[in-house]
């Protein structure tokens, strides 16, 4: 089986952020693999452990710094990587990003594409389903369970919906966006880290992909005025012997919630 795993690098979720010149900054904070993409990588590696003729190709679009996450994902067990890197790719919206990813995938054979259910910075949850749409393959989002048929030609997919879950059966090839609960991502082993150093990372630019023939420069929208959320008004600490009753009174009479 040939699996493509899409990987994005994001700011550590534990990081405090500031806004400078319309951009998020967080000096000294580390970058991590998007947590939902880690579930995708782990799932691919687990499939390979069951089906040894599996080949896992990472696909990542981002600047030079993304190499750290690509290395880590290779150390977790992916076989090789394609790194799409070009100044022209900066600030692409989800539509354009998915167009570029789809173009790069035209040259890679696959049976399964795994993505995270969303990147924890943009929080749009758009790229995965948009990519499947451009590739004209079926997809399931927010996946918490994958069960293959014995011949790996079909899959039974569990998907999270608000208040429950649903199960669908689909033939491969297909694209899945992975949600927490699917698995527990491993830490790379020392052996994995050593092996990763020898694995192939192919870097492709916009011109390698003939990206100028994609309409990625057409603006569909402008996302701007990045700012910190409005500060919450200072709260009060309740004291005294009748705290519970007082809180209920406040929520009822002042906040009018109860």
């Amino acid at each position, binding site marked *: 089986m040939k699996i493509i795993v899409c990987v994005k690098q994001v700011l550590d979720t534990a990081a405090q952020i500031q806004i400078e010149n319309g951009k998020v900054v967080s000096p000294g904070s580390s970058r991590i693999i998007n947590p939902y993409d880690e579930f995708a990588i782990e799932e691919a590696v687990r499939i390979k452990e069951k089906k040894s003729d599996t080949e896992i190709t990472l696909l990542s679009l981002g600047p030079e710094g993304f190499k750290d996450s690509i290395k880590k994902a290779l150390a977790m067990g992916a076989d090789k990587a394609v790194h799409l890197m070009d100044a022209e790719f900066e600030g692409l919206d989800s539509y354009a990003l998915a167009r570029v990813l789809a173009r790069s995938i035209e040259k890679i054979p696959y049976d399964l594409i795994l993505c995270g259910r969303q990147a924890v910075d943009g929080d749009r949850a758009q790229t995965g*389903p948009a990519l499947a749409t451009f590739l004209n393959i079926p997809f399931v989002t927010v996946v918490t369970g994958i069960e293959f048929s014995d011949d790996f030609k079909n899959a039974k997919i569990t998907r999270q919906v608000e208040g429950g879950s649903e199960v669908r059966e689909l033939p491969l090839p297909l694209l899945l966006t992975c949600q927490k609960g699917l698995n527990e991502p491993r830490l790379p082993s020392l052996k994995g880290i050593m092996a990763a150093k020898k694995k192939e990372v192919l870097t492709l630019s916009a011109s390698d992909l003939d990206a100028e023939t994609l309409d990625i420069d057409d603006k569909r929208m402008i996302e701007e005025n*990045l700012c910190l*959320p409005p500060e919450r008004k200072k709260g009060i600490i309740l004291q005294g012997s009748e705290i519970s009753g007082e809180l209920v009174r406040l929520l009822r009479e002042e906040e009018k919630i109860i």
Partner: protein
Amino acid sequence: MSVDRVLAVVIEHDHGETKPVSLEVLSAARKLADQISGKVVAFCFCREANLSGDLFIRHGADEVRFLTHPDLQHYIHENYVSALLRELEKSAFDYLLLPATNNGKELSAVLSARLGVGVAADCISISVNDGDVEAVRPVSAGKAHSTVRFTGKKPHILSLRPNVFRNPPIARQGEIVEEAIQLPEFSQRVRELVKQVGSQLDVTEARIVVSGGLGMQGPENFKLLEELAEVLGGAVGASRPVVDNGWRDYSNQVGQTGRTVSPDLYIACGISGAVQHLAGMSSSRCIVAINSDPNAAIFSVADYGIVGDALKIIPALTREFKKVLTS
């Protein structure tokens, strides 16, 4: 009245019931429509038109279109996309508003890709500026906000976060249309939805969320939170360490790597307030924090704080709420 623009709303429903968030989306569309002399059309894809069209009208629809097909009993994105594209061909709309649920987000992504149009995802406020709609949306789970303006082709798509756009229904007039539609065969592509389990109130949709952290000291103590949530008609949430310890299901997790929530009331019990947790819940309308550590970060976002042992305070709170709510 001359109508300038058409605002389409896709109704999300499940097991024969309209999702409350769909009524919120209708209310938000109504508010926008009133500012741009627009018309709100509610699209309800279903097997049979057994939902209340009047309810959609009272929440803001000028026209309700029940589009029926045997395959539309459950949401399946391929069917919804086909049906929507067919409607769009018949008559253009300027804006398409959806709930920012798992279904709404994937629908908006597919339509964006098919039509080459922009999406403002998970909006928490929408307004009209110079005749154009713009939307504020959280990024990094709410650590920052950005503003989206549309520039390209229409329809411009907005998905709206649950719980943020609630408005009471009003008496209004509107038109209800029912039509059986054709859908392409997806037999090879997508087999039927085989089962659907669970119908508990979701943390993202609950008006009140009672959430527990490591300060709850063990999974067995979460029954205290369940009791409180039941009295309040809310849902139980959890912090990441609680979920990572296996005390609660991952669907309960609130924070940057879980669910981002904006309920009317968020009660944080024994939660210290890690950065990624605060990101996921600090847009709640009112926050109550109960924690034994007076220096816990959770108090920095709380409207009301109680310093003390959550295990002792929660049962007392439950009793007080019960008293008030049953009297």
